[in-house]
């Protein structure tokens, strides 16, 4: 390993040190949403923030009550774990402590209200007489009890302050109506700040209750636990379980698939090791970039594994397909594709950051980091250890899969297309469409408006909490009102400000059962104003006592009054707001008062009213309240608000993504037909997904909606790869499926495994996202593999040759004509045009030889060029060419480097000179292209020639009547030679290979024919050789390019002192026909062209029967071009490497 690589460990170590895990699901949500902020405040500071809730169920109320009391007492004995355990309202166990809360509540009332007490105590005898009468005649249990122990009515707030009592004992929160279900509140000792602390505490508590449970099991008592410690422990353990099951499961599937295909241990184990390292590295980098990772996002691991393994598979496949190649060579060959793929896939996941859900963005960022890391790891680290000291895979020991080998070497076995396949595809498509339509006609998958996707699955804490809601609660989702302020006064002011809004909402039936604990909130101004009254009331203690005893009340009846007066007496001298402090008051206040966020918080509760609309008036109220420092929140509002946000942001995500998708498809295909096929495949995949969702009863929710952009990003690849494969294999469906299809199957299977493993996630939303993504990916693969090839064949039927199209190399190999390299334009033009995505290389790297023409070199682009040449003035066209050349020079560094490397020998290794020449070459080529288009569009070109030298050489050679073979190189604008011959009264036959696009072949043939030049396609016609000989024997002229030889016809000669491969076709034709071989160059000179017919290359025909003689003759021919090449290096148009590797 290079030393500098060790430096990478520094950020990884920093990331690991910074890495924290957050188990708060709400932190995944956008805090700027008032509903989310309100919920976060509530969850963080209220809801018994640290308490454990234990539910107890028994066959009857009596046993439940006895068991609850017993359990509470048992829990209290664990003093190292438990601070307090309540099985009934604490004020029932210590009722005397409730006096403090009552006294302070009075103090918090407006002075006018508090002053009413002075009337009650001003004439205590009359008040007591009324109390006695009530005690004697009342049927109300509450009234009798209250009057007995509060004869002066100090606990009864005025009606203007307190609504009529609903249930007085407060045990509705501890026991169900039938008494068989009870709730215990357990306050832990310590803060339990982290999830390990929660888990350890809960384990200890469960152990402590285990013996009690055993003793009570026979009584039919069942216990369940919920509350923050349980949620935290569950989420933490769920995270571990998710990580273990999904990661191990995905790795297992990867291992099985790899073994099934390759059956090799070392590459398999190393692949798994690298994937594991990638995961660890991603966590570390995630810690460095993000800091605190939400545990829900740990689902990234399985997704990442499913995607990153593809890069390793590709590397390994390529290594197998290149048995003699070193790891570096394989990397050079494959890396661009992998890296570009990684960039686009990572980009798709990064787009999730625009989803409006920070948690989903975090997940996307993690996957993107992992993909980048995984791609680098696979590209640079996977193969070297496998190739080992021998540095090459030994083909004999490690036979490559037949398909892979054929794919890499280009020696494909072209099979005849099955005539019935397209029909089968169409029939299957039709059947699928009908089936989907039938199923979906019953309705599309529903859109869930709930926040349930944020909930954990299979959670005891959650189900227990639901049980509590069912047995003790209102069954409706409540709404919480949270008001904040820097101090007591600000909270009180804000409460006063929102009261009118809330009351209006209640009167409009938007809210109901509003319970806002404003009467209990310490109002500094009120308390201050009530001091004098409190002091006066406290001063009446003796009078009150004496009067009560004289009135027949016992001292017991005055205990509560006495305590209340004591609180008021103390409050009269207080300088700060008075808070009740005893245990009963504290336990009660903790339900709705909290300190945090640099101030105070108060919580109230309400329920949606009969006219509440979660997306309408309720949402409006929830939006208005934050301006007053208060939040209306609740899970029912959360789901609606988040869904609205997701739906809105979905278009922000989908819009750019769709544009990028279209652009990618266009750059990949350059044919609308294939672009539309890809889109159709995506659409059908989507339809299949909807159908499966409908059948399975899944619904869209706020998390799995984000599967749509992910599927667009991932699913489109399959269509692209399959159509590309079809192109390469000339529409051979079976071959395309066997080669690319097999590779896609592996990739799709691992991706499905990655996403699918999330189905067991402990988070419901992540599970639904995983399921939808897995189904969508599978659907995309099935459509691309099974149906798309058939569609493609139907669409391409008119343009494909009857026999499957062959690759250039295949055409070269199959042609009986040894001079099959002489495509006049295609090779150079196609090479010049941009590489398809994923084939670029960085500066300084050895560029690969493109194996196929550029996608831009097609009939559509050519037609566009011809049209532009017709309408644009030549000067403007030249200007555009200059701009285009400059842009291309900048945009295609790999092509630039290729050209520079090609020109270096012509400049004796002077790179600076080669670069200058290369820049000129780019410009000259675009100019040449513009002139060629003008020529092919019918514009006369003879006026462009400013020189025609050596015509007499042609005439002399022609006069011999054995035919003239005009040989040239990819130098200048060789196509323009045809009109010269025509102009001089000779007909020329140009030998050419079929163009990549059959329509382009036709177009170019027609253009030449317009100028009297015939074209003979030598690629697919086995009798072309005979035709050429016949033409020669008839004294005709044939044109041929030499400097791009096919492998079979190539001979090595010297050019500028370096080995150079050139076609031996001229020598072969000379031997076969005895024709004159005349080199020709047509180069740009000034604003026109100069045609130069070089001296005829003479030979002894009989000697050409010797192979070496033919090579020597070829060498002579090529040497004749050296001066012209020296003079015009910037017109020698080669955009692929031309010098053989040393």
């Amino acid at each position, binding site marked *: 390993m290079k030393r500098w690589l060790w430096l990478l460990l520094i950020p990884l170590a920093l990331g690991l040190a910074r890495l924290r895990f957050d*188990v*708060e699901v709400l932190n995944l949500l956008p805090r700027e949403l008032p509903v989310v902020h309100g919920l*976060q405040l509530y*969850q963080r500071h209220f*809801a018994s923030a640290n308490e454990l809730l234990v539910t107890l169920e028994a066959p009857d109320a*009596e046993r439940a*009550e006895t068991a609850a*009391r017993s359990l509470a007492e048992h829990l209290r004995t664990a003093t190292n774990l438990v601070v307090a355990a309540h099985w009934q309202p604490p*004020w*029932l*166990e210590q*009722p*005397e402590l*409730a006096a403090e*809360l009552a006294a302070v509540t009075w103090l918090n009332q407006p002075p006018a209200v508090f002053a009413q007490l002075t009337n009650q105590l001003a004439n205590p005898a009359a008040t007591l007489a009324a109390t006695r009468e009530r005690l*004697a*005649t009342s*049927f*109300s*249990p509450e009234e009798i*009890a*209250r009057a*007995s*122990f*509060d004869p002066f009515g100090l*606990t009864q707030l005025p009606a203007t302050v*307190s609504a*009529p009592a*609903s249930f*007085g*004992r*407060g045990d509705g*929160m501890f*026991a169900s*109506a039938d008494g068989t279900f009870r709730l215990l509140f357990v306050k832990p000792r310590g803060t339990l700040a982290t999830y390990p602390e929660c888990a350890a505490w809960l384990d200890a508590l469960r152990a402590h209750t285990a013996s009690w449970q055993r003793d009570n099991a026979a009584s039919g008592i069942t216990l369940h636990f919920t*509350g*923050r410690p349980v949620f935290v422990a569950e989420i933490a353990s769920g995270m571990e379980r998710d990580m273990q099951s999904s990661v191990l499961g995905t790795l297992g599937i990867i291992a099985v698939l790899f073994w099934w295909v390759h059956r090799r241990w070392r590459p398999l184990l190393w692949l798994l090791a690298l994937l594991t390292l990638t995961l660890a590295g991603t966590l570390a980098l995630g810690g460095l970039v993000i800091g605190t990772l939400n545990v829900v996002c740990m689902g990234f691991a399985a997704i990442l594994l499913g995607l990153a393994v593809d890069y390793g598979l590709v590397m390994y496949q390529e290594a197998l397909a290149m048995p003699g190649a070193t790891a570096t060579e394989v990397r050079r060959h494959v890396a661009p594709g992998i890296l570009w793929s990684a960039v686009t896939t990572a980009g798709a996941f990064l787009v999730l950051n625009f989803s409006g859900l920070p948690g989903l963005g975090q997940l996307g960022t993690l996957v993107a980091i992992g993909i980048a890391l995984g791609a680098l790891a696979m590209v640079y680290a996977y193969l070297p250890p496998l190739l080992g000291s021998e540095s090459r895979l030994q083909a004999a020991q490690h036979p490559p899969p037949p398909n892979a080998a054929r794919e890499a070497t280009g020696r494909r076995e072209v099979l005849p297309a099955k005539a019935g396949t397209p029909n089968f595809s169409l029939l299957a498509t039709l059947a699928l469409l009908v089936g989907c339509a039938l199923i979906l006609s019953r309705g599309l998958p529903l859109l869930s408006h709930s926040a349930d996707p*944020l*909930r954990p699955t299979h959670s005891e804490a*959650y189900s227990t909490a639901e049980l*509590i*809601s069912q047995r*003790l*609660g*209102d069954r409706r*989702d*409540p709404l919480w009102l949270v008001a904040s302020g820097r101090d007591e006064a600000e909270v009180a002011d804000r409460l006063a400000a929102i009261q009118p809004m809330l009351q209006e909402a209640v009167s409009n039936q938007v809210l109901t059962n509003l*319970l806002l604990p404003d*009467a209990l909130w310490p109002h500094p101004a009120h308390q201050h104003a009530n001091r004098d009254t409190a002091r006066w009331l406290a001063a009446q203690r003796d009078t009150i006592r004496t009067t009560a005893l004289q009135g027949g*009340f016992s001292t*017991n*009846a005055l*205990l*509560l009054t006495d305590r209340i007066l004591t609180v008021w007496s103390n409050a009269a001298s207080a300088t700060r707001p008075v808070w009740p402090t005893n245990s009963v008051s504290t336990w009660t206040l903790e*339900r*709705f008062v909290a300190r945090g966020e640099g101030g105070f918080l108060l919580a*109230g*509760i309400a329920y949606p009213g009969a006219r509440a609309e979660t997306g309408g008036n309720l949402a409006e109220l929830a939006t208005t309240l934050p301006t007053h420092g208060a939040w209306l929140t*609740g*899970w029912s509002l959360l789901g609606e608000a988040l869904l609205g946000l997701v739906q809105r942001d979905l278009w922000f995500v989908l819009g750019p993504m769709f544009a990028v998708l279209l652009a990618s498809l266009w750059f990949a295909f350059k044919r609308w037909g294939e672009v539309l096929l890809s889109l159709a495949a995506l659409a059908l995949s989507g339809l299949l997904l909807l159908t499966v969702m409908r059948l399975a009863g899944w619904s869209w929710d706020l998390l799995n909606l984000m599967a749509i952009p992910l599927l667009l990003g991932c699913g489109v690849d399959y269509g692209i790869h399959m159509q590309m494969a079809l192109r390469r294999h000339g529409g051979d469906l079976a071959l395309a499926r066997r080669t690319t299809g097999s590779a896609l199957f592996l990739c799709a299977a691992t991706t499905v495994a990655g996403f699918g493993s999330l189905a067991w996630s402990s988070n419901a939303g992540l599970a639904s996202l995983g399921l939808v993504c897995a189904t969508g990916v599978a659907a995309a693969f099935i459509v691309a593999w099974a149906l798309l090839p058939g569609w493609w064949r139907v669409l391409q039927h008119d343009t494909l040759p009857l026999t499957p199209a062959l690759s250039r190399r295949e055409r070269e190999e199959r042609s009986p004509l040894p001079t099959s390299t002489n495509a006049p334009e295609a090779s150079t033009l196609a090479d010049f045009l941009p590489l398809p995505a994923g084939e670029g290389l960085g500066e300084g790297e050895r560029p690969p030889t493109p194996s196929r023409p550029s996608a831009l070199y097609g009939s559509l682009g050519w037609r566009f060029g011809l049209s532009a040449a017709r309408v644009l003035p030549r000067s403007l066209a030249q200007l555009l060419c200059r701009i285009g050349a400059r842009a291309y020079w900048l945009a295609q560094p790999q092509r630039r480097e290729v050209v520079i490397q090609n020109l270096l020998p012509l400049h004796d290794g002077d790179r600076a000179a080669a670069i200058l020449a290369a820049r000129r070459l780019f410009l000259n080529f675009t100019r040449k292209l513009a002139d060629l288009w003008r020529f092919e569009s019918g514009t006369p070109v003879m006026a462009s020639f400013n020189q025609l030298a050596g015509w007499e050489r042609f005439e002399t050679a022609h006069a011999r009547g054995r035919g003239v073979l005009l040989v040239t190189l990819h130098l200048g604008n060789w196509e323009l030679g045809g009109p010269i011959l025509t102009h001089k009264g000779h007909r020329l036959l140009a030998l050419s290979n079929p163009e990549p696009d059959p329509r382009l072949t036709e177009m170019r043939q027609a253009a030449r024919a317009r100028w009297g030049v015939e074209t003979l396609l030598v690629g697919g016609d086995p009798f072309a050789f005979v035709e050429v000989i016949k033409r020669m024997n008839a004294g005709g002229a044939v044109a041929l390019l030499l400097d791009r030889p096919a492998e079979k016809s190539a001979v090595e000669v010297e050019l500028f002192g370096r080995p150079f491969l050139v076609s031996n076709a001229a020598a072969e034709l000379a031997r076969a026909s005895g024709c004159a071989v005349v080199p020709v160059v047509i180069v740009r000179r000034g604003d026109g062209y100069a045609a130069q017919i070089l001296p005829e290359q003479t030979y002894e025909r009989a000697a050409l029967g010797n192979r070496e003689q033919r090579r020597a003759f070829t060498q002579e021919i090529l040497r004749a071009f050296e001066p012209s090449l020296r003079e015009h290096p910037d017109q020698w148009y080669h955009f692929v490497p031309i010098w053989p590797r040393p």
Partner: protein
Amino acid sequence: MVSLRPHLAAPVSGALASARFWTAPALWRFGKSHSVRKRQRAAALQDAGAPGTARWVLTALLLLHFGVASLPAADPNAIVNTWLASQTNLTTWQADFTQTRALSTLTQPLTARGRVWFAAPRRFRWELGEPPQTIAVRQPTEVLILYPRLKRAERYPLDAAAGGPWKDAMALLDAGFPRSRAELDATFAIAALTETNGLHTLALQPKSASARKLMPEIQLTFSLRDNVLRATQLRFTDGSLLRNDFTNVVMNPKLDDALFAPVIGADYQVSLPAAKGAKN
């Protein structure tokens, strides 16, 4: 931090309500904890929620029916069996009464006079005070309590959906108004039968432990001569007593149905104290 779902609304709601309207039972317990703490500390801890007052009021109301049968001498079983048999002839009943409440917070008992009407199977009207300050009417689906002087009415539903002490009390008392000996035995055990000055006192003990925690004993006093119920007495765990002494008893009088269907004045404030989330 973790997400706790709305299920916690109930505890919070309960806490808010309880904190704001911390009410009678707490005070009931408060007084008990001081007056009988030493003697009944353990029992006090068991007295969860103490829906007591409601129960003893209703118990007092419904135990009227125990007084309308003749009792043969000596054998408690025979007395009960005869009594149950005589109830089949009972359709209506009315009486005047004096109610005595001995509360632990008062040094002297409180007394009030009133009238009561009963119609089989389960309707009654109870007027307390002269003029009536409190009227309790038992209807098929609810108990209605009127406070004419305060222009206030309280409804206590007795349907299945209604929970809490009222339903518990009615369940107990409906069971305690058996039509057969088997039904009686299912709810009460006969603790004692005594005779004083020609009056028999039958002590009953609730069989349910929870009921016993509320009300350990019920006494019925009646005359063997006319088989008229003379008094009922309920004793509660804190020592409080509720006694009704009946006079001017009339059996099977013709009663106006309007007695059991009082019209609530438009100026009355009606509430549902026993319902969760009490509404006006």
